[in-house]
């Protein structure tokens, strides 16, 4: 039974890996796929000479326009900035935590704490100075690793970091700690920008598998709040259930 589970898990991983490869290829050609599909749709729609047809033609020309104006950014990965402006995915999320900016800054500044609330991080090793090594669990059971450096830091106020040149997952992030109104704790604002292996399309597909970056960051911040306010992360994993054998 265990062997069967393992092999079917392996098969699923292989299928997912193939899906990721397919999406990469799709993404490389998406500009031209958009133009071709859009043109075909527009022609089909116009031919029907009806209101519905007009709508289809509209969607088609939208695709053509999108294809033609798209940045073809998978072509040459030779930039020297970690995530160039206007590229990749940007996520910004805030949470208010019933703790002081000092407590939050101290907790976050020790990057080895990050995997305690960031679900997709397996571990972060401090390499010394401002350098650290990050290991993440990717959406398809794949691992991604990169080195990051702290590029900006104001004690109890903000920390900014980015992946070093040549990383597989180009990313940059910052976290800001601001006292909330009326002494009601601290507002923690996170800004992340990254270029996932699957690109913009990868993020769209990942959304279907509920690994969408925005909700990931939201849930990560919720866990950070739980940890700082209660010392633990609320869970029901491992509790009894009526459909488990006793």
């Amino acid at each position: 039974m265990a062997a069967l589970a393992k092999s079917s898990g392996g098969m699923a991983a292989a299928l997912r890996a193939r899906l990721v490869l397919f999406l990469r290829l799709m993404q490389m050609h998406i500009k031209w796929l958009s133009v071709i599909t859009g043109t075909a749709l527009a022609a089909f729609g116009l031919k029907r000479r009806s209101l519905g047809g007009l709508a289809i033609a509209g969607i088609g020309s939208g695709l053509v326009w999108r294809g033609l104006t798209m940045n073809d950014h998978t072509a040459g990965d030779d930039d020297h900035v970690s995530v160039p402006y206007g590229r990749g995915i940007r996520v910004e999320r805030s949470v208010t935590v019933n703790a002081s900016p000092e407590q939050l800054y101290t907790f976050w500044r020790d990057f080895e704490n990050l995997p305690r609330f960031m679900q997709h991080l397996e571990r972060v090793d401090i390499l010394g100075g401002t350098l650290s090594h990050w290991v993440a669990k990717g959406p398809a059971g794949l691992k991604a690793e990169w080195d990051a450096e702290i590029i900006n830091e104001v004690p109890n106020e903000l920390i900014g970091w980015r992946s070093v040149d040549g990383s597989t997952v180009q990313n940059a992030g910052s976290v800001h700690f601001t006292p909330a109104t009326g002494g009601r704790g601290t507002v923690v604002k996170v800004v992340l920008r990254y270029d996932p292996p699957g690109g913009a399309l990868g993020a769209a597909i990942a959304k279907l598998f509920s690994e969408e970056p925005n909700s990931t960051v939201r849930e990560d911040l919720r866990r950070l709040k739980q940890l700082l306010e209660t010392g633990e992360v609320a869970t029901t994993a491992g509790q009894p259930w009526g459909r488990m054998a006793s």
Partner: protein
Amino acid sequence: MKAVCWWGKGEVRVVDTPDPTILNPHDAIVRVTLTAICGSDLHLYDGYVPTMMRGDILGHEFMGEVVEVGSDVRNLRVGDRVIVPFPICCGNCFFCKNGQWSLCDNSNPNAWMLETMQGFGGAALYGYSHLYGGYAGGQAEYVRVPFADVSPLKIPDNIPDEKVLFLTDVLPTGYQAAEQCNIKPGDVVAVWGCGPVGQFAIASARLLGAERVIAIDRFPERLRLAQFHSKAEILDYSEVDDVYETLKEMTGGRGPDACIDAVGMEAHGTTIDAWYDRVKQAMRLELDRAHVLRQVLHCCRKGGTVSIPGVYAGFIDKVPFGSAFGKGLTLRMGQTHVQNYTRSLLKRIEREELDPSFIITHRVTLDDAPAMYQTFRDKQDECIKVVMRPAA
């Protein structure tokens, strides 16, 4: 262990499951000595609360003996006898610190679901759907109690289970409903629904100084209990043409000073809007049958208070909001901040000012749960409150 599990709409089963274990450092394990079926469990039973899964362990009214504590639990010990309030609360967030326990920020691992539906999500509840955290409930031999330092209240050995069990939910819920009415000497309070919460709302309104309490229901045994126990005046809505006119006459043309909706989302009624709700709910176009809510808003006097302990879950329509606005009503509602009331109500019980066990009509064991859910739901056998002992 034996546990009462939700098995689909209209079906619960007693199932053998593994015992709960400590999962977090602030957890405790409680051996349940007495548990109850709550009227709000019937909303789960009837399939009106989304995100229930077959096999989920039910129950949020329970008490028992602490048999194990996690490494960070400081103020509970093995052997302590405790009642456990139904909202699971961290004790350290903005809301817990402000006494708004049932709005706790940190206890619900599925908070995003409630956020999506309601804008912001409140505390997790035991055995009350995955929307509310998916925690296993207390209609079982053992139950895991998270944040065990915060909510459970130790009970002296000389008070029997039946007198303190309802501190977990229905007693504070009825009490909060009455307290929210801001009762002043001379006030007339009308209470819709004479189930357990209604009975305690009536009794609490009396304790808080209401001069008259009018109890509204259609089941003679429930009206009798309110009349006999809390000296309420009674109104059988199935016997009168118009509840509004009747209440107006009973209050000298002014209307009740405060109105309590202790019914919630599965209201029954005899008017057109009640049938309209039934059809919409049956077609899953509406989660709640809001007949009582509409009536309460319509009947309350100008400048009065409407207090809503009855549970609502979704969207409702044809609510006379213009009436609420025009009369300048104060609306109070929400899940009960149980932890605010457990200590003071326990004192009242110890001083014998209050014996909440008067509502119990059925005493059974966990094995009888499937039949009892049905009896309670259908109000057969004059059933008002069922308590269950895990062992025979």
